[in-house]
């Protein structure tokens, strides 16, 4: 109980101090760009009411989910295929390395040409940026499946879908999750940018709109919302990862103890 309290104290002390410092330092601020924290917090509930949640936050999250899910499915599927065949990997590698190296935000103008400025464009932008880390990590993961396990599966006649489900994908899953984690932050970046470029709703659009109309406290609340969204998504991701990869972390911990 005592240790819990101490840990809680450690976790909360610095954030409390930082917020207090922000509050006090900005309290008498007359600088337009750095409004007092008090004003920002007072503006917050006015700006982010039910209506705005429905018209701006929800579309953003839906686009992110659609793009991210597409990228995850496509990345894992393609990565498994490419990773399974040595020749194919050799053929694709330079092209994939190049495509991955292109900074994803520059795809926004290109995809705008094809898909206009609607939701499709944003989903495609998010998917096309997120797919590379997933794809390349899956290729690595599939390639590194333990050869002994592969031989064993083969000699027991485990092939096709069963092999994929029981051997290849579980063995590659730690790598796949690494890719998915990298893709998550790229996804949020692309969601915001695609909305800043051309949109009529969404978080990115709203925040830029506030900035352009010099509604500075409102802009600050938008930044806070984006920050909270990023934090929430990473917490959710960690929970999912802990669930799915629980066996793997357990295995690693056991290996570390015995060594």
């Amino acid at each position, binding site marked *: 109980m005592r240790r819990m309290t101490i*840990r809680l104290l*450690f*976790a*909360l*002390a*610095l*954030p409390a101090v*930082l917020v207090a410092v922000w509050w006090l330092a900005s309290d008498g601020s007359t600088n337009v*760009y750095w409004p007092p924290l008090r004003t920002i917090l007072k503006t917050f509930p006015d700006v982010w009411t039910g209506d705005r949640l429905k018209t701006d936050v929800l579309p953003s999250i839906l686009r992110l989910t659609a793009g991210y899910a597409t990228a995850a499915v496509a990345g894992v599927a393609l990565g498994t295929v490419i990773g399974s065949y040595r*020749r194919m990997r*050799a*053929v*694709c*590698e*330079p*092209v994939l*390395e*190049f*495509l*991955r*190296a*292109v*900074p*994803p*935000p*520059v*795809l*926004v*103008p*290109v995809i*705008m*040409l*094809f898909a206009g400025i609607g939701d499709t464009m944003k989903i495609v932008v998010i998917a096309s940026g997120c797919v590379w880390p997933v794809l390349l990590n899956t290729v690595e993961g599939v390639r590194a499946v333990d050869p002994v396990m592969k031989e064993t599966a083969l000699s027991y006649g485990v092939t096709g879908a069963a092999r994929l489900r029981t051997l290849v994908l579980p063995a590659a899953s730690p790598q796949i999750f690494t890719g998915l984690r990298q893709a998550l*932050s*790229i996804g*949020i*970046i692309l969601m*915001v*940018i695609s909305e*800043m*470029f051309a949109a009529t709703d969404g978080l*990115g659009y709203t*925040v*830029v709109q*506030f*900035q352009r109309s010099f509604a*500075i406290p409102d*802009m600050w609340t*938008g*930044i806070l919302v*984006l*920050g909270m969204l*990023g*934090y929430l*998504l*990473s917490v959710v991701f960690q929970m999912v990862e802990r669930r799915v990869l629980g066996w793997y972390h357990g295995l690693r911990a056991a290996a570390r103890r015995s060594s």
Partner: protein
Amino acid sequence: MRGLNTALGAAGLAAFLALGEVVPRVGIVKEAYFPPTSRIASALWDELTDGAFWSALGDTLTGWALGLAIAVGAGIVAGVLLSVVPHLREATASTVEFLRPIPSVALIPLAVLLYGTELRSVLLLVVYASFWQILIQVLYGVQDVDPVAEETARSYGLGTWARVRHVLWPSALPYVMTGVRLAAAVALILTITAELVIGAPGLGATIAVAQSSQAVPEMYALIVVTGLLGLLINVGARTVERRALAWHQSVRGEVAV
């Protein structure tokens, strides 16, 4: 074996380029949206002979290098400090975990207000994004220090600075290098993004101009340049990593195979 792989890779690249030539030519996608490879190549050549392109490239590289350098320096100092001073790591863990996932692009409106299209706007975003990559890796690396080595150094009476220099730093270096490699890629993404969205001078801004003036082949040519730049940075970071860790098990093992 290596020769065969290189040949296959070259074949793949050639096929990719040929596909880019054929697909718009036969009209599967409109040429206005997706110009054939040869048009992009000639646009690229025009760019290369243009002085404005080189100054944009210079601006981008300046933003990238400066931002990365600041982030690496600050990340290493903060990381070592957090691990060496007792309880500081614990006290900051929740704050780090909270600040890290905040998307740096959320700061774009603030950067625009504070610095306009200056280099400082770009740096604000780049440093914020890449700092966390380094810091987290340094913290992981310090946790990985062999307790026996640490105790040995202590019992030989090495002071804090000597322990940081001879025990902690070499143990953490592989992690730091991974962090630098990740941060180098992130820094490029954020540099180009800042230029694209804010309009700070550089390749990103040039792409935005090409896009708004409907210069489609030029736009693709510039995108190819950013891709090559990214590739170069990846390869460069890997080389630096291998050099700096030439003594380390992981790299030595790699060479032996």
